[in-house]
């Protein structure tokens, strides 16, 4: 009887630092109550509640920023959550994604004569899952966050009941997601076997002394590999990308935007967290894996994107190649002996934040072009957009150019950041490969632009309406894209602090 009977003292709970989570939870409660108590709310209100919740959560996260600056990064809540700028930035990205996607969804549901609070609740739960992933300091917590996020996404992907593609996308995503979760979990189990803990800081401590875990411990090696496989599925890195195009195409467009933004942010943050705070002493073991994944993702993503004719599929492949870029940043961060390795972390996180806005903007336009029913996403459906809706077309052009990495857009700043990080640790090969492959990728964006501007519209294309909220999202995203492209200083200032991770 080691435990004297009934005196469990639970961990102290830093309520203040959990504000964003509570705000999101509050939003969920409000939406669910409202959804169940009132017969039907007037249009747009559900979406606005959801996005306001996200915005408030975002602001509260920003308010925490200075608090965290003053106190050192540390683990809170029974050492299960990490409190550092990294987590806060991830939270900001995710909240921004919820904010924008809720607005998109609002118009989307109106157009397809559907409404209800459920999808927004799922956005918010997904956000909570994502934030937990970003902030987790324990593999089990990470896994639970991952599942919360993933399950929300599965449902969201399948949520359009009028399109069989949507449900098929949900199913495909679900099966492969569950499959990858199992791998991730097995990885956790093996790492647990090697280190006797699932706590990330604990793993780091265990691995720091060579006595407790030998250098060539097979459990750790295989466990690391399996965890990487699981996370690579989630970030859609080649060769674990096969679900992406189908799911992106099938899911409702605002949901696709959400998957590509918040989903990616959370998964990448988790990948960074696992690799860099738990396993930094074993970089030599896993860096080559990241290297290969990065290269394959960029090249294969770009190459396959070119062969597509459906814009959502194209963007899916392009997101794969973007994932490759971010992996380049992780690869750069995996040089703990270099003084500049931290730039890899901040590079990736900046990339994620910028890509979040960028990709949501892109999909916002795609969603509008998809028209009622959310089906018109072939390249030919974009014909004549430039003539019909020049402002929209211009915004799309800005987004596409930014994705291609043209200077004076946020996309360029993002790419510049990771490439710089890679060059700083002398990973020239991957940097050059990434840049060259991005040229192939640029072809894809050009194809869309050709359809938009240079080809005449076909007769059967119905006119495109731009509802207010979606228009707002597009405008905000476009302005953000340009502003960051021109004056990125303030953002870079902030993201430089991200490199200080809890437990390092």
């Amino acid at each position, binding site marked *: 009887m080691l435990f004297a009977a009934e005196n469990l003292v639970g961990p102290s709970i830093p309520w203040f630092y959990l504000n964003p989570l509570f705000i999101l939870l509050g939003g969920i409660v409000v939406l669910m109550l409202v959804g169940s108590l009132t017969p039907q709310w007037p249009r747009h209100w559900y979406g606005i509640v959801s996005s306001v919740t996200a915005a408030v959560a975002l602001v509260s996260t920003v308010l925490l920023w200075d608090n965290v600056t003053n106190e050192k990064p540390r683990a809170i809540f029974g050492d299960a959550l990490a409190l550092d700028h990294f987590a806060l930035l991830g939270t900001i990205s995710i909240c921004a994604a919820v904010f924008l996607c809720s607005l998109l969804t609002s118009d989307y549901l109106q157009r397809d004569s559907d409404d209800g609070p459920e999808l927004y609740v799922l956005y918010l739960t997904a956000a909570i899952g994502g934030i937990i992933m970003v902030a987790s300091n324990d593999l089990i917590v990470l896994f639970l966050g991952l599942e919360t996020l993933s399950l929300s996404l599965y449902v969201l992907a399948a949520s359009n*009941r009028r399109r069989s593609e949507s449900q098929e996308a949900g199913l495909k995503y679900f099966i492969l997601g569950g499959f990858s979760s199992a791998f991730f979990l097995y990885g956790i189990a093996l790492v647990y076997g090697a280190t006797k803990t699932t706590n990330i800081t604990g793993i780091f401590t265990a691995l720091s002394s060579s006595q407790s875990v030998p250098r060539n411990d097979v459990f750790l090696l295989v466990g690391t590999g399996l965890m990487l496989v699981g996370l690579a599925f989630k970030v859609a890195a080649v060769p674990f990308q096969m679900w992406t195009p189908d799911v992106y195409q099938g899911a409702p467009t605002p949901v696709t935007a959400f998957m590509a933004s918040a989903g990616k942010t959370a998964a990448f943050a988790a990948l960074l967290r696992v690799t860099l705070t738990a396993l930094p002493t074993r970089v030599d073991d896993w860096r080559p894996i990241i290297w290969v994944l990065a290269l394959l993702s960029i090249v294969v993503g770009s190459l396959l994107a070119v062969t597509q004719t459906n814009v959502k599929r194209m963007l899916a492949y392009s997101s794969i190649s973007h994932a490759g870029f971010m992996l380049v940043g992780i690869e750069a961060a995996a040089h703990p002996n270099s003084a500049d390795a931290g730039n890899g972390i901040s590079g990736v996180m900046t990339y994620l934040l910028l890509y979040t806005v960028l990709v949501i903007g892109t999909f916002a336009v795609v969603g509008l072009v998809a028209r009622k029913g959310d089906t018109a996403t072939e390249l030919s459906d974009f014909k004549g957009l430039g003539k019909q809706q020049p402002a929209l077309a211009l915004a799309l052009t800005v987004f596409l150019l930014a994705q291609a990495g043209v200077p004076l857009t946020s996309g360029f700043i993002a790419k510049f950041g990771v490439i710089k990080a890679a060059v700083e640790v002398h990973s020239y090969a991957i940097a050059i490969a990434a840049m060259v492959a991005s040229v192939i990728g640029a072809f894809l964006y050009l194809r869309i632009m050709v359809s938009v501007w240079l080809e005449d519209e076909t007769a059967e294309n119905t006119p495109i309406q731009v509802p207010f909220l979606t228009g707002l999202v597009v405008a905000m995203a476009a302005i953000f894209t340009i502003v960051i492209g021109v004056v990125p200083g303030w953002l870079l200032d902030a993201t430089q602090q991200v490199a200080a991770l809890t437990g390092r």
Partner: protein
Amino acid sequence: MELFVFICAAAMVLAGALGVVLRSNPVHAALSLVLTLFGIAVMFVSQQAEFLAAVQVVVYAGAIVVLFLFVIMLLGVDRAENLETESLGVQRPLAIILSLGFVALLVTTIVQGRDSLNMRGDGLITADSGDHDANIRQIARSIFSNYVVAFEVTSVLLIVAVVGTVVLARKRKSEKDLTGVSA
């Protein structure tokens, strides 16, 4: 006796697992799954994880597989599928080879690494020590100290499950009722 239990349970587990993969009728597959789950519950018991064994049976056998069966029966998809036609040329052997390779990797890992598994512990108290509820008590302690966050996140997870099902299952007026069987 422990060996005997292990062999029986392992036989259950493997037979059940093979049943899931090989049986063509989904109901039979689900029953095989139950067999596996029971085998695993027995193994939990023999590893002195009584609480998990009970939860395993309650959750898996009592809820999960029942749900499976429910769906199968409700949708009337219980006809046997033809295992021959579903093969996709090279895909099946490839998958099997891949999986075999993976298992080989894992087994090698386990055999190689078993000695390095850290044996020193600060106390997993088993029932042997005379504390009747030791296992449950320890798990409770672990859940409400180290993993309290995880525990709270679980609630969100369950919200997702509930809301998700509502989204997926609810029908609108505009959609036609296509299901033949209703409960």
